[in-house]
């Protein structure tokens, strides 16, 4: 197992490098002089000279990439001129908020999605299956940002159950209960689409597995139907559900952008949108690389779980 994890970690290195190359190339598409583009309204001749010296912006593209990569490897993501602080500090501050939101959402969509899929498959064509299929269809069709807005209207404005926005109450908040109240709506809104996609996938994976010969064997042994579905079928179905979970984690992580805008959540997504609108290029660059790298690491974790689940993989 350790060998497997190590192999996966090593194989992630080229992917991570590829990510930096792609981000770098995309950012190199910005027209005009890179120093002026990065500095924007701060582009005084001194600043331009300073940034050219530190980032090598007047050097050829390839050289610039390696200078940038070298800086990042030492933890130096550059400086945000608009915010006047190191990019990495800003990202780390914001990322924890995004992790709380996206992490909760991911757990929600994984549990709800798999559960809905299992019930749907176990009761194929029954009323529960129909109801779930209908809700799932709505879930995957409604834009998360619109869903978030409608939730605000209903649960915050009409019913006054939950706060409209933010991560903590401005006065007297700050504890876990306060966080939970602020988190409920954004986490659900963010989870909706992924839940739907996972539920669909889980349903068809379960149906596929329930037709397998080893399920018939379990029944022939006299295993109870509940156990057949929840133990035999679900475990086998998880093998094909897990990759979907990994994929959906990416959607949840990046879809947090919309939800953070709607609920004024102080996360990386909102930071990125602000940075794009302010043309704070180093912040965008750093933020994108950071989040993408986290996603790559997460996917390794998914692979490892897959390896634990399916003994045939290690061989």
């Amino acid at each position: 197992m350790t060998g497997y994890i190590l192999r996966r970690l090593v194989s992630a290195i080229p992917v991570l490098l590829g990510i930096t190359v792609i981000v770098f190339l995309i950012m190199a598409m910005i027209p005009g002089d890179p120093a002026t583009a990065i500095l924007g309204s701060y582009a005084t001749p001194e600043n331009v000279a300073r940034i050219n010296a530190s980032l090598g912006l007047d050097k050829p593209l390839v050289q610039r990439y390696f200078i940038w990569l070298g800086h990042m490897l030492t933890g130096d993501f550059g400086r945000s001129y608009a915010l006047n602080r190191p990019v990495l500090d800003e990202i780390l501050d914001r990322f924890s908020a995004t992790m709380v939101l996206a992490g909760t959402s991911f757990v929600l969509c994984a549990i709800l999605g798999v559960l809905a899929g299992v019930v749907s498959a176990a009761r194929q064509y029954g009323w529960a299956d129909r109801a779930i299929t209908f809700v799932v269809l709505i879930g995957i069709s409604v834009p998360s940002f619109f869903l978030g807005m409608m939730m605000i209207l209903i649960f915050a404005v009409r019913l006054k159950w939950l706060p409209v926005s933010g991560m903590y109450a401005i006065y007297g908040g700050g504890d876990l209960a306060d966080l939970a109240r602020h988190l409920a709506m954004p986490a659900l809104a963010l989870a909706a689409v992924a839940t739907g996609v996972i539920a669909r996938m889980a349903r068809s994976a379960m149906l596929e597995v329930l037709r397998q010969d080893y399920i018939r064997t379990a029944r022939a042994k006299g295993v109870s139907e509940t156990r057949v579905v929840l133990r035999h079928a679900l475990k086998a179905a998880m093998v094909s559900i897990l990759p979907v979970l990994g994929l959906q984690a990416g959607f949840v992580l990046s879809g947090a952008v919309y939800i953070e805008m709607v609920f004024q959540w102080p996360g990386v997504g909102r930071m990125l949108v602000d940075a794009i609108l302010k043309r704070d290029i180093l912040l965008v660059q750093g933020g994108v690389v950071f989040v993408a790298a986290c996603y790559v690491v997460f996917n390794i974790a998914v692979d490892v779980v897959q390896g634990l689940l399916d003994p045939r993989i290690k061989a």
Partner: protein
Amino acid sequence: MSGFLKLLLRNRLAALGGVVITGIVALALVTPLLPLQPPDVTNTAERFARPFSPGHLLGTDNLGRDLLSRLLLGTRLSLAVGTVAALGAAVTGSAIGIVAGYFGGRTDNVIMRLIDMLMAFPYILLALAIVAALGPGLVNALIAVAAVNVPFFARNIRGLTVGLAGREFIDAARLSGLGHTRIILSELLPNVLPVIVIGISTTVGWMILETAGLSFLGLGSQPPQADLGSMLGEARAALITAPHSSVVPGIMIFLIVMSINLLGDGVRDALDPRLKSGALSRPRAATRVAREHVPEVPQQGVLDLQNLETQFHVGRRVYRAVNDVSLHVKPGECLGIIGESGSGKSVTALSVMGLVASPPGVITGGAVRHDGTDLLSLRPGDLRARRGAKVAYIFQDPLATLHPLFTIGDQLIEAIRSHRALPKAQARARALEMLEAVRIPNPESRLENYPHEMSGGMRQRVGIAMAMINEPEVIIADEPTTALDVTVQAQILSLLDELRRERGLAILFITHDFGVVAQLCDRVAVMYAGRIVEEGPTMQILDAPAHPYTKRLIACVPELGGGRRTLAAIPGLPPVVDKLPEGCAFAPRCAKAQEACRRGEIALEGAAPRAVRCLFPEEAPT
């Protein structure tokens, strides 16, 4: 094509989606012709007019602009942008995929590596990066959304192209001196086009949603121009005071995406042959039983099948897999059922414990009695309690029939604990004992093995151990040795024979091989097209087969107990059991067939213990 459309229309939801999206597109198309208010004229005196206000059917927005005309124009814009993005992604992605798949080798490798890198990004993040570089704006948002969808098309089309590139017609084109461009355009493209079109139809809704999303963030369309996303984004500030200005564009996006999704699902289902055949149905815990009456006969053995009828109902077609089969097995006796694949022998075996996949299987008549109790009328819980405990199965191909993700030990222990509340340690000891009984070397370490870590012969021993572990009275073995080589087969057979003699087991042994029957079975029943055509003691039947079909089957085994085991030597194919000819089902393949054979029912008769279903048997059974 028309069949496809019919299927699509039969799916009511898909049809509904089709109608809605057609309506929206039509509306968007005729928008310029409609007598609408000007969309960009601001009128602060009429800010946030509610829906149904005079002059503004849907009310006005934060600048007093007419929402209806903005909605229609926004819809038009969103549909256009989403469609163009989908087309752009499809064309670029497919081109990349075709080039990679067609040229293969290094080109393919480099391209696909790049595509994999792109897919390592969380999707929306990549779009954000592209917009960040190009700057906010609708065209840039479109490019970004198209770009992040390129990998999807590239991957799918590459896979397809790789398959096609190796086919003869491409080679032929190459040999005839056609250039690469010509081959790609005239030979490859027409073949991958349908997949591209399906790809577009399933992603276009998604792309509309994504461009709307970027606009919502303020990174797409810029004022005064507004697509649905930026309408929603602008209305957000007034969400609480004037919810209608958010609800109107939001519902429109929802309707568009949902109708496209419905249509897309319908298209996918209509193209999936498995759905039609019911192959995607979940088999119930026990086969459905729908019989009119239960035949009453005195108990003859530990397992009695009386006039059993099992059918497969697929759509309107009925396949009569098991047709009026009666069999009796006594304790300590081994009864063989032999026949070609499709003869109904396996379905007969599975019907006993309600293990025929259902749907499509239905038991439509007869009775199955274990120790005099009719198993078909048992409640699910009672049937479950007997499965594995009283009547156990050994299946063919244990790689498929053992669960791949549980250890052998787990599966054996579960078999015990499904019937007895034994502590785990004791169950484990019992499992170990069983593995020893079926002569598996190093049983202790084998308990921790997964099925894929064992050889076929060892796996089948595990299958036998699992069947025997609760000391059942009846074992139903469904071609347990077919996947094994001859030596292993002989070992497994002698193991079964030994267990039977030691424990007084009744065995119902399903096979297509008379050689196997000769080694193990006391009596044998020959099945053809769902019916028993001959029955009797093994030795007598081997010596003097009465039915022409039996004779052929025996002739297929060159030397009993060894050699080639195949039925391919019988000319002709077994009949499809939904169109049984009248009279003898074997008539089309029978050398002795007469006019009389094709008329009326032929009874299974003869002097006990033999019986045959033939008008002109080989030798009168004595």
